[in-house]
């Protein structure tokens, strides 16, 4: 099947995807538009985590913390000072980035699973802090209520359709931005570090600084997603930022294809839209999720739509295996 997919020029894909994106909300009802809205928010989260996990190779299982910081920044400042939501986008990005800077700095020398465990810890610390209502800011387990709606050129964005265009505009911006980063010296440096940190350092790359940069940028984008989520829901509570959320984001990156932007979108679809399609079987959801995870790791460990680099790496590896000789018989 891969062969037929490759025969289609990439531009045709972009045009088709763009058309579908514009036409889609007019073909369905509000419910399905909202599904697409959450798809968009999780796509943003997946893309932001992809910078940390996919490009720089840093295992982060506490990404919901940055998402929470962004959402609460927007919620608290909007409800107390009535600052317009969209003005708070950069501020949410900044607070999430600042928070990432503070927590990532001391732990970046950790490798692989050690880093992973520490990030799980940070994620939980943030969630529990939110529950404990420090200084009466976060509203405890009930969260923050009555968050305002974003408005753009006098239009108050309230209906799912309006949110749809706002959210997907952000998704497209983030896709474009991460694509450009990927193809720059910064993106390459992240890849070098993921491949071999010592060799990267010997080539003059400041490994600690670049890792920190990946964390900060990834967190900033998660903060943006948090801002939009807060205004979309109008109510946020610590329940929205549990460890499970971090797991979902991590799964999006791993299932979709580490380091691949189209892969992230496919992964988000798999993690978020498919369960929605099969809502009728929701009691079996975890069972299917577990089985799907195992199947993926066995049959397609590189993800559904891996980056060009990983695809080539995987293909080349199988060529080297003795089993490749089997293909002669077919």
């Amino acid at each position, binding site marked *: 099947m891969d062969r037929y997919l490759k025969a289609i020029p990439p531009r045709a894909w972009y045009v088709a995807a763009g058309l579908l994106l514009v036409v889609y909300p007019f073909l369905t009802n509000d419910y399905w538009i909202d599904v697409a809205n959450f798809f968009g928010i999780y796509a943003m989260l997946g893309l932001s985590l992809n910078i940390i996990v996919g490009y720089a190779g840093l295992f982060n299982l506490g990404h919901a913390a940055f998402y929470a910081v962004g959402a609460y920044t927007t919620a608290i400042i909007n409800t107390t000072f009535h600052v317009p939501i969209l003005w708070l986008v950069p501020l949410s990005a900044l607070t999430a980035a600042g928070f990432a800077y503070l927590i990532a700095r001391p732990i970046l020398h950790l490798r692989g699973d050690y880093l992973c465990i520490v990030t799980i810890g940070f994620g939980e610390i943030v969630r529990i802090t939110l529950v404990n209502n420090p200084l009466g800011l976060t509203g405890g387990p009930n969260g923050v209520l009555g968050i305002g709606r974003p408005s753009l050129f006098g239009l108050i964005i309230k209906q799912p359709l309006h949110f749809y265009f706002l959210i997907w505009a952000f998704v497209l911006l983030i896709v474009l931005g991460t694509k450009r980063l990927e193809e*720059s*010296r*910064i993106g390459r440096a992240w890849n070098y570090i993921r491949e071999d940190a010592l060799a990267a350092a010997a080539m*003059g790359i400041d490994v600690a600084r670049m890792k920190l940069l990946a964390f900060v940028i990834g967190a900033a984008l998660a903060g943006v997603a948090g801002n939009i989520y807060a205004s979309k829901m109008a109510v946020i509570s610590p329940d929205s930022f549990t460890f499970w959320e971090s797991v979902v984001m991590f799964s999006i990156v791993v299932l979709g294809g580490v380091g691949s932007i189209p892969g992230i979108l496919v992964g988000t679809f798999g993690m978020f839209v498919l369960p929605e399609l099969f809502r009728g079987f929701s009691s079996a959801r975890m069972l299917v999720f577990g089985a799907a995870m195992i199947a993926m790791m066995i049959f397609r460990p590189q993800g559904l739509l891996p980056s060009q680099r990983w695809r*080539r790496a995987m293909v080349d590896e199988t060529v080297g295996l003795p089993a490749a000789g089997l293909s002669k018989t077919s």
Partner: protein
Amino acid sequence: MNLLEVHELTKNFGGLAAVKDLTFQIASGEIVGMIGPNGAGKTTAFNLITGIYPPDRGGVRLEERPLVGLKPHQIAVLGIARTFQTIRLFQNMTVMENVMSGQHCRTHQGVLGALLRTPKQRREEETICEEAERCLRLADLWLVRDELAKNLSYGAQRKLEIARALATKPKLLMLDEPAGGLNEKESAELMDLIKQIRQSGVTILLIEHDMSVVMNVSDRIVVLDNGEKIAEGTPREVQTNQRVIEAYLGREEDDF
């Protein structure tokens, strides 16, 4: 003028003195070989000079500038590039991308430049590619630039490591066993490459076990044994040095 000065460099691992009071100098434009039996401390000396390990004692200066205490990437920026004994390429990246890594520390565009694709950023990307092309052509790897590094032959991987190190525009290039695992033809190509690199004005320090290579290319040789320098001189002097012969072949026992 001396490019590199190593002074009483010492490193202990537990009770073992891996490198002990190592002192030597490298003049600009020289090719210096470093030899010694296995476990003599050659690679440790490399790791101390390039900042991978901190020394217990002693100093390293590059053009009068002390290097001890600097991180590996800072030392690379100051002009020391190296290769590794066990090849450490970016295996799943292309040959071209591997060599482009060397230009990272010579370029400055940040996140904003990349996001906005400013003209300055695009020009910088072009110079990165041009420099990478220059290094790849020098190492005769230009034709395989789109291959993944891990698919290259062993000899080509060794050359790619050298090309990658060259892309940082080093003053001193440190090669850790560049001929290790190469066949005769590849070794001969390597010697040509090393001489070509020297002609472009880069000073070279190399560890090598292949005596034909090291004696052929080196102006001067430093011999280590048990972490200490036991001899230094021209290839001819070193070959006839009694202590060197003992280190390699063992001492002759008196017959009773």
